């Protein structure tokens, strides 16, 4: 019997969260750009209620998730985009 190591990691919280599913371990989370550093053993899929599913490669290991950045026109600083 093989052990099912699939885990769910929420990459971005929202009404439809972006969720990564795979043999994943969170190494580091950072406030800046909503960054998550992950270690994968093999492929993982990323799902969302509205966007089509995407998948990493079979041999994926080192993954970093970063939120898309907009340039706040008033404060002139980067800010997290949202969809």
């Amino acid at each position, binding site marked *: 019997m093989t052990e099912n190591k699939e885990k769910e990691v929420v990459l971005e919280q929202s009404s439809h969260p972006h969720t990564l599913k795979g043999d994943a371990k969170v190494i580091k989370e950072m406030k800046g750009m909503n960054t998550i550093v992950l270690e994968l053993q093999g492929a993982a899929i990323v799902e969302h209620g509205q966007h*089509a*599913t*995407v998948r990493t490669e079979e041999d994926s290991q080192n993954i970093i998730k970063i939120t898309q950045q907009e340039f706040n026109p008033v404060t002139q600083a980067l800010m997290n985009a949202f969809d």
Partner: protein
Amino acid sequence: MIIKHEFLDFNTNFAYFTNKEPEEHIAKFLKMAYQNNKPRFVERFINFYKANFKAYDIQNFNDILNNINKLWDVSNEFSYEEAFKIENNNFRIKVFSYINIENLVKELGTTRINVEGKDVINKVWNPIKKIFEYIPTTLIYELHHANGEKLGLKNAILPIVKCWCTSTNNEHWLWVNPDKIIDNSPLSAIASTCCIYKSMYGKIKYIIRHGDVFVFEMIEKVIPKENEEIISLNTDEYFSLLKSQS
């Protein structure tokens, strides 16, 4: 303990609503969320929390609710300028989720500066067949200049990129840094929204864009530091690494 609510959670340990925002901000946000409808706000927010506070025997927090209820009567919804000035990222996003960006752009007034297309082969996962599919797609980006006067910015030209979601075909607008735009190229503008930590540079195997989330597979292990310099990718770097998007 966190009491969950459809708009704002309450942390009973620290006695504050989401993100420790001032009560004035909470009232302004709730005006937007409940579309200025006071009876609905009272029923679905005030009464919801009063019932929860009673259930958990923490009615001393009712003062916070009473204050927000009073502030509702003297508050206006966030103006665009105020919304951009909210410091907390998560709360600002929450507020902007109730601002219709298309209306905002229309109200500010924009001029279309340039349009560019990019032919790509989009690698998407078919979860039913469990195979990758390679779909030829043309990505279209428009660079606009918005007038900053209504945001309190006189004589400011604010570049903003219009694009369309490859999954939903919904229109999206993204504010971009004018210093990162090369020759009014919308492609350079969209590439500038893909920011990385400097230690990641040159070590990215490929990029997946999933809505507003970038997933980078790295050639080797990289653990960025919190205070590290942030850089954005240029057009060639971004589009040569982008393998999949939805």
